[in-house]
């Protein structure tokens, strides 16, 4: 499985940055939308999906959890793919965690332990 160049960082020309900052830049919580404009190329699309499939979500100034900025830039097919990828990743994460918790569960627990019960 591991080739001789496994230790090399993925190199090549740096692609443009994916929008995906810590906070949602005024985006509505949860982020319902009709499907954003498709990104430029397959590489961009792949990075958007990979970013949106992660568990980190920023908060707005009121503390509401925000949709990932990359999610807004995906079309419907990309969003469906991000959902499926997240589902599989969370299963892997839970399997690798001593308490069976995915990064989603860890993020929720961190917020609970930080804020207590409202």
């Amino acid at each position: 499985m591991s080739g001789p160049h496994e230790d090399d960082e993925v190199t090549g020309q740096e692609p443009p940055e994916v929008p995906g900052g810590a906070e949602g830049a005024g985006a509505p919580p949860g982020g319902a939308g009709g499907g954003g404009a498709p990104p430029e190329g397959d590489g961009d699309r792949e990075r958007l999906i990979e970013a949106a499939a992660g568990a980190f979500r920023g908060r707005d100034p009121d503390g509401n959890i925000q949709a990932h900025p990359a999610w807004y830039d995906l079309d419907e097919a990309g969003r469906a793919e991000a959902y499926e990828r997240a589902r599989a990743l969370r299963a892997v994460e839970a399997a690798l965690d001593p308490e069976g918790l995915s990064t989603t569960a860890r993020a929720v627990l961190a917020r609970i332990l930080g804020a207590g019960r409202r």
Partner: protein
Amino acid sequence: MMEVDAMLDLDVHLQAIAEGDAAAFGRWLAGAEPSLRESMRSFAVRVDVEAVLQEALLRVWQVAPRHAADGRPNSLFRVGVRIARNLCVDELRRARVAPVDEEALERALAAEEAGVMPAGPDPLLRRVIEACREKLRGKPAEVLEARLAAGGAEPDEVLAERLGMRANTFLQNFTRARKLLAECLERHNVDLGAELS
């Protein structure tokens, strides 16, 4: 793939959760999260399920002290399904992205709620995934470990900077890690490998 069909009753944690035991809620989360996510599948192209799911789970924690079990298994889980569903519907209404057929939505959700219930962990699957993770080397191993260690509490940009990478390089390495894991799992006939690839 190794499937575990045995349904759990996560209400065994209910009393401790109601008393504010976050560790008990963690055990509830471990069982409930996959099925709750599954129950939101039909919303995935209109709503960022990850964000809404996390909000729903926080609300489950908040309502748990006032929740009265109805005598059927997984009563708190079913509350979670309803909370998640309502959050999704709120998002659709607020964004006015498409007309919502309430009756059709109710039927779909009822079917999903009935069909999606928590199942137990699979120890054999865990061992295979751990063995595949241990075969990762270099940057792909680093970025996977970074996301796991962050526990969803830090954005990829911060993790990338910590590893001395640009955000896009971080994501490229994560893609590589994911595909290597998927190949390894597929070699072990784990269905998750295909879903991950």
